[in-house]
C-alpha cells in the first residue's frame, strides 16, 4: 500500500520522531510506513488521518 505520509509530514515541518510522538508509535514504525514496508492497522491509519485532518483515502492508496 502506498501513502503520502512523508509529504504530509514535510508540509508540517515535522521530523519522523515528532510524528512518532504524536502517534504514540516508534520512529522506526513511522519510517517503515513511509517507505511502504509496513501497512498500519485500521486504528493507526484512522489516527494518522485524524492528525492530518484528512480522510484515510487521501493518505493511503491501494497498489492495484
Amino acid at each position, binding site marked *: 500500500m502506498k501513502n503520502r505520509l512523508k509529504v504530509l509530514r514535510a508540509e508540517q515541518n515535522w521530523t519522523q520522531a515528532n510524528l512518532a*510522538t504524536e502517534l*504514540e*508509535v*516508534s*520512529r*522506526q514504525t513511522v519510517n517503515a*510506513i513511509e*517507505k511502504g514496508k*509496513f501497512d498500519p492497522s485500521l486504528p493507526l491509519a484512522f489516527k494518522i488521518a485524524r492528525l492530518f485532518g484528512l480522510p484515510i483515502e487521501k493518505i493511503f492508496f491501494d497498489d492495484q
Partner: protein
Amino acid sequence: MPKPGTYAARELKNALWAVFSSLAWGLSIALSIAGLANAQEPTLFFVIFVLVINFGIGVAAVMVHVHWLKNSDEMIRKIWIESMAMTFGVLWIVLGSLLILAKAEIISIDHKVVGLLFVLSGVGFATGGFRTLRY
C-alpha cells in the same frame, strides 16, 4: 535519551526491564545449578528452594515480556512475535535433532547441552528482534 512520558521512553523502559529480567532468570538458573553441583549432598529443602526461586523469577520474567509486548507499537510487536516464533521453531528442530542423536548414542545430553539451548534461544530471539533496527 527520549523525552519522559513519550512512547519512546516507555518502550525503552519496558525493553530494559525485559532484558534485565531475562538476565536475572538466566543468572538464577546458572547459580542454582552451580549451587547444586557444589553441594556435597543437596537436601530436598535446598532443591525445592532452588525450584521455587527459578519458578518465581521465571514467571516474573514472562510477565515483564508480556507487558513489554502489549505496550509496544504494532510493527515492533509484530517483529518480536515473529522472532519468538522463529526461536521456538529453531529450538524444537535443534532439540529434536539432539534427541535423535542421543537415541542413536552418537551424543549424550547433559545439563550443559540443555544450558546451551537456553543460550541459543536467547541469541536467536535477540537476533530476530534486531530487524527493528533496519528501519
